[in-house]
């Protein structure tokens, strides 16, 4: 192995490592979860499979945020940390084993890239909008949807600009509404209070100082008008929650019941505690995200506005560094740009999605937006990715 000042790692090419990762995931899913190889299936149109016209469909995207590696998720030794994905969701899913992120591996900029279909290059730590139109803008402008039909729930305070871009043809007024649950809680509790501190924590790599977004009256209005929640009810429920992501999922459920948006995007972030170097807390974050993802799917299946017509996408924004890359420190960061940190997975389930199928051809993070456009019937002309035919 050996150390190097500049970088170090294995001699294998990134492509070779990515293929190996995909193969391992595929074989594991085939043997462990009984999935079939997708290449043997005949294509059919999404409409034919669902009988639901594009205008009636809904999409929920969960970014399994914070970056999770194979050995803590889909490798044999990692499956114990994702029992809900393994037993409940994967059998119902089409699973893509090789989702490659070729962009900047910072959480805000990577999520922005996922949402625009272009590898964004904005400063990961600044409060800036994406430079290219977001999926929310394409969706609303092309389909003439109201602002209440596209929402983002983002646990991290740094994500407040993710809803709409700075692009001159789109931008202000055309994006998604963004809810930052921590801001809601801070406003509801007049600054926090010790009982709620565990729900307000940010992690190691999010901006420490977030500019005031608006007065607390704005957040309180969101609570009352959009979520139909009283401050007291919100505070009382928050006391029963264990983490910022749990708070986010609570808000998402409320949003689904009160607003029923057709395009809903939630970024999880508890896993990113890994940057503090405590492996047990990183694992706790994975277990929690696994459980919350399954909880959200149950909500989708049980809410009349969503059941039977919703497609759910779950994908990490990227991975984390490999143990054997001496340029990094294993699970702690995603700084080396090695194959393990760039290669991740995606699962899709619900309306129009084949169950129990696995595809291992390489695809890119930027393919998500054109795929959503094809599924919901809007154009994503400035996105760089390509629609994923296996889902259409």
């Amino acid at each position, binding site marked *: *192995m050996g150390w190097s000042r500049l970088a170090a790692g294995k001699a294998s090419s990134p492509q070779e490592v990515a293929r190996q990762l995909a193969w391992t995931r595929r074989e594991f899913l085939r043997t462990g979860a009984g999935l079939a190889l997708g290449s043997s299936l005949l294509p059919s149109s999404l409409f034919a499979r669902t009988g639901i016209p594009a205008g009636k469909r809904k999409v929920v995207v969960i970014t399994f945020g914070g970056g999770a590696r194979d050995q803590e998720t889909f490798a044999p030794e990692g499956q114990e940390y994702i029992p809900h994905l393994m037993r409940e969701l994967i059998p119902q899913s089409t699973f893509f084993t090789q989702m490659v992120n070729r962009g900047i*591996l910072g959480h805000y900029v990577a999520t922005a890239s996922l949402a625009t279909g272009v590898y964004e*290059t904005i400063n990961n730590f600044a409060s800036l909008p994406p430079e290219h139109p977001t999926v929310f803008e394409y969706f609303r402008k092309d389909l003439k949807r109201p602002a209440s039909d596209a929402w983002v729930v983002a646990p991290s305070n740094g994500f407040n600009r993710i809803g709409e871009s700075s692009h001159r043809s789109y931008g202000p007024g055309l994006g998604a509404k963004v809810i930052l649950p921590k801001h809601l809680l801070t406003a509801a509790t007049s600054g926090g209070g010790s009982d709620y501190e565990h729900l307000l924590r940010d992690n190691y790599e999010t901006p420490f*100082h977030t500019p005031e977004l608006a007065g607390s009256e704005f957040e309180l209005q969101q609570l009352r008008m959009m979520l139909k929640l009283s401050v007291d009810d919100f505070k009382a429920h928050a006391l029963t929650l264990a983490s910022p992501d749990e708070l986010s999922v609570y808000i998402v459920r409320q949003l689904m019941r009160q607003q029923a948006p057709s395009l809903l995007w939630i970024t999880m972030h508890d896993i990113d505690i890994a940057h*503090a170097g405590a492996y047990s807390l990183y*694992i706790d974050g994975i277990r929690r995200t696994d459980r919350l993802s399954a909880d959200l799917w149950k909500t989708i299946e049980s809410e009349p506005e969503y059941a039977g017509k919703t497609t759910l996408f779950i994908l990490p924004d990227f991975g984390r560094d490999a143990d054997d890359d001496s340029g990094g420190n294993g699970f702690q960061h995603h700084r*080396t*740009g090695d194959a393990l940190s760039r290669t991740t997975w995606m699962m899709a389930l619900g309306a129009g999605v084949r169950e129990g199928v696995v595809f291992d051809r390489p695809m890119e993070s930027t393919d998500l937006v054109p795929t959503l456009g094809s599924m919901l019937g809007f154009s994503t002309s400035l996105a760089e990715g390509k629609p994923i035919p296996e889902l259409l």
Partner: protein
Amino acid sequence: MLPSDLKPEQFNGYPPEARKLVSSYASALQRLPLSFLPSLLREVIEYDFKFPAERRALEKELANLNSLSSEQFKDWLRGFAQIRLSSQLENFDWVNAPGQFVEQLSSHLWTTHQLDAFRTAALAYADRLRAVVPPEPPPVPRLGITVIGQGVAAYDEPLFRKLRAHGAYFSGVKPDNGLELLLSVVAARAKEHPLPYAHWYIDGGQAAAHDPTLTCVSYHALERVRARLSAKIRIEIQRPGMGPEALRTHLAQLRPADLGLAKVGDAVLDRFQVKMLTEGSGTQIFSTTFAQWTAREALRRAQPLTLLVRFAPRQRQKPMNEMLSAGREASDLDPLGSLIDADMGAYYNWLNLQRLAGAEQSSFLVWFEGHNEAIAIGPSLPHGTVSDAATGLEQLLSWAS
């Protein structure tokens, strides 16, 4: 400014030994691409505070660069020469602030999608350098010891899962006076091979009594330094616009005196300890992270012959601002979570030991402190085996070596 414009007097701000070193190689430095040179200068500017092994490696690297013909130079550095840089980077004061330059270069490489090309160039260069200037073999096989689980009364889950395939697992270890015994073995090695910074004891809590010949770093001994650092961090993160990158840059500029370390101490070790706290992520708040990162850096930089790392319970997870407030740790610890952290940390210690010259002859032991479980890895021990025989730690070390 480009490297070709370099003049020896531009290094006048460097510490004396670094200045002397770099002046001998000024002509070689002038030929290096800007995408490469500042990362080398980042090491050179720290030369006065480097461990002996690092110094020798740096001297050899510079001598090698100096010996290359023009053709060889182009061949070795072709990948770096093809990296496109911005005028902002060219205008940066990379001679006096190479560390900050490298941070900005990293950002530039990500933004311009050149990171993979840089990685390829760096790997090719490192492979070539290793072939021409191979790492020094140790005068005696290295020994790594990791002690985990302090404060945990019982644990039912399997330990050492990542290491078991590489060594022999023992479930009948006699734990009596285990730590003292291990420290005495380490001290004996230090006396037998008395080289500077060659025998380390890193403790994530309060260091146990140990031989003064050992290079010792402990989380507890740095409590006042950590408190000062936390106070500085708390002030900085309140500043508008302050984020992790800006904070990191600020912390990297702190020196031992800024954090209250005495001027009469060991300047090399003091600088190392401050770097653990200012450049490590999470080392300020979690003792388990501190122990793992310090072990990693000690192995990478000092290349010790002996390293004993003892993990201790860390504080529970709390909001970041609260964790940065010193003085509340003792009352709220997470021993079980710390055991899991340390179990992974032990695996990383072994991986990092494997990166050093002579790895195939090195031996490694992990012991669950106060308990009967241990794993031993060494050239004469079988892989993936299990034994429940009653065994002393000294015996395990003897088998592993």
